[in-house]
């Protein structure tokens, strides 16, 4: 079937899926902390919009609640907390040195192909038109992990972690029209709590090793080489 034969809503969902994937790549490429947080906020906003769109297109009113919650939490609250943390820790002007930026991005491209390959069997089971987005959500998860691997600053790793959660949420919304409300609420608060805990952890970390550079944690190793 051609793309042109889908309804405009379905097309829009595909479009937003693509843009969500794009924001993941932007995060991967972004070396500065504050724009990174902003991109993360944009990803949350896109997620919320997509959810609202799915709610409208499929007539699932409970998704509106999810959308609103996503927007509040992931587009406003968590980015705001992270931003405040960054300012208070005085790292908001820092630029992270990524070892091979272009290579990382190419690896990201490879991950997308890989997720497509992985998602193929799942896609064949689903009858929904938007099932192709499963590959995108897997890619967002993997890209979040890649972000965590390539970065040194703990705050970027937290963002990577949150973006993994975004990917999972996206998969749930577009492929099965959302998880049961209870589960969603639970996850949302888990994420919030995680964000707060991370904040506390950052201060602890800086107090004890005087840096947010996670490479310094190597020193905690028992046996010296």
């Amino acid at each position: 079937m051609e793309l042109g034969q889908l309804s405009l809503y379905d097309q829009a969902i595909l479009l937003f899926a693509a843009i969500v994937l794009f924001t993941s790549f932007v995060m991967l490429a972004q070396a500065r902390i504050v724009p990174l947080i902003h991109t993360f906020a944009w990803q949350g906003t896109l997620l919320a919009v997509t959810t609202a769109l799915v709610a409208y297109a499929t007539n699932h009113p409970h998704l509106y609640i999810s959308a609103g919650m996503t927007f509040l939490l992931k587009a406003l609250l968590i980015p705001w907390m992270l931003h405040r943390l960054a300012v208070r820790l005085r790292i908001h002007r820092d630029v992270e040195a990524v070892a091979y930026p272009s290579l990382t991005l190419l690896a990201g491209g490879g991950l997308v192909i890989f997720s497509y390959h992985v998602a193929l069997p799942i896609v064949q089971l689903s009858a929904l038109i938007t099932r192709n987005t499963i590959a995108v959500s897997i890619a967002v998860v993997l890209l979040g992990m890649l972000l965590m691997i390539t970065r040194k600053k703990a705050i970027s790793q937290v963002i990577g972690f949150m973006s993994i959660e975004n990917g999972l949420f996206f998969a749930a919304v577009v492929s099965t029209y959302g998880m049961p409300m209870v589960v969603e609420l639970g996850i949302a608060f888990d994420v919030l709590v995680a964000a707060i805990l991370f904040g506390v952890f950052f201060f602890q970390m800086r107090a004890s090793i005087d840096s947010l550079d996670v490479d310094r944690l190597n020193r905690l190793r028992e046996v010296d080489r």
Partner: protein
Amino acid sequence: MSPLIFAYLALAGALASGVVSLGADRYPHLLRYGSSLFLGACGLLAIVAGGWAMIDETPATDVLALGLPWLKWHLRFDPLSGFFFSIVGLLVFVTSLFAPGYLREYTHPGNKQALFALGLFSGLFVLGMLLVLLADDAFVFMISWELMSVSSYFLVAYQHQHAANRRAAFLYLLMAHIGGVAILLGFGVLAGFGGGFTFEAMRDADLSATWASIAFALAFIGFGMKAGMVPLHAWLPEAHPVAPSHISALMSGVMLKVAIYGLIRFTYDLVGDIQWQWGVVLLIIGSASMLLGVLYALIQNNLKRLLAYSSIENVGIILSGLGLSMIFIGTGHVVLGVLGLLAALYHILSHALFKGLLFLGAGAIAHACHEYDLNNMGGLIRRMPQTAVFFLIGCLAISGLPPLNGFVSEWLTFQAALQAPALESGVLRSLIPVAAAVLALSAVLAATCFVKVYGVAFLGQSRSRRVGHAHEAAIGMRLGMGLLAVLCVLFGIFPSAVIGVIDAIPNQLLGQGPPSAAAHGWLWLTPISPRVASYSAPLVLVGILLFALVAYAWLRVRAVNIRRGDPWDCGFGSLNSRMQYTGTAFSMPIQRVFAPVWDLKVDIEETVNPAQPLRTEGIRHQLQVHDKSWSRLYEPIGRLVLAAARRIGLIQTGSIHTYLAYSFFTLILLLWVVT
């Protein structure tokens, strides 16, 4: 009458040129004229024979009463052989035009080298290449293959007074033989299943998918090593540049193609059932070869080394075309597979032409000013105006610029790659465009590389006195280069006509011609259909010339005279040749962007006057480039082999009794096995 007669005559010509030069040490003219005359005849005959074989529908076969008692020499001359036969013939003919002028300094009385060796081994080398193409059983194939390898070894080692050349030659011999073993084993697998060493038997062999893949892998390693694919390429940039330039042209222009011929013959013809996974391997290796080849070429300053690395790039392009073809054939899209194969064949032809031209050009420069280092050249366009024109055409062609021949083959490869949506597998669908992007990147990098070559060598001011006094090449040398330059242009402008002839090869191998490449007349090249893509090289040339001439005429009519003046020197006094960008400086931005690719060693020495510590008096910048494959692949393997050899060396005791005991126990063991 069959084309084989001409082929035999060509072989005889090659042999005669070798034999004639046996007397070259006494009569140097025998080498310059006698041997070249026979080579020229051999080339012409080979072109005729090859062309005939391509037009002739039925392959000509023959059995010669040579070789082993139970295995006579089987020869076969079909369109595929014919195509390569003409390419070899063409380059041999051109080098025979080039050689008399070029060899003059070799025959100089002061030269101590054995002249007969150069002529003899050149003849045998050509003989070996031609015979490989005719072989129809593994025995002839391997014999002529070895003849080609060994005689070219002597040519590489010809200037053996330099230790580096001896080392390069040894490396070449070693790699050629490792490759030879792999090929032999590949034939062995086929022969084992087919029950005979003739290609006829191998074609009928019924292989399981696994065994077919093993045979393919062996052949791919063997032929790929000879063709210079990454990472088995390390010998190529060492060996090709140290041979005399017209031999380098033959080695880079044609010998690599003979290896590709082997690969095509082995997979398309002998194995037959192509699996798409092989295509993926070829595509990946091909992409790696072209990118690394061109990046290494870009950073070289020795002209011949640079050209040798660029051959690796072009082999990569050919392999990618073949890879695409195999992917399509393996997934059942034979028509598209034909397109990929055509692209590869066209690039084989194009590369033979322009690489031959460029190596001959490098030879002409070396002949004129004894210089290979780009950073000592400059301004040659004024000293060697005709060579400069031919070399420019070669540079344009190898950079894949329309409307020359290099562009046609790259365009066909792109078109083949763009048919990826026809494939079922999404991974392949997304992999192939990435490979195409790599091709685009290498094409532009090649253009950068040859802007550097041409700009530094021919343009600007001369950077050394010898270069400033260079003289135009001899008439024969110019004739040879000019012929290739004209062919580069012609094969660029009339691709449909050429493809109309090459069609015979996919017809023979796959039983299918291209869908409609030349269906819309000589003016249009339409590989799939006019709606999908079309390219009209004649109109492109006419269009560019037309618009350029209109602008020229219009401006000429109302032209004000041109005044000559000094270039802008920022008010510091006149420019000198040391202020120009050197080759190293030119490639510096690329070197910085792709830094992890090379093993670079940069030495910057500053000399400071102790009285004025803040003032630098002079800066010495030295850049050493090493091939990463050495430290990553060859040296570990070398160490491994040495360690193994040391272990095995334990059995060498030096005592004669122990050796006798070895023989004794071997005898006992064998007797036991036999009973």
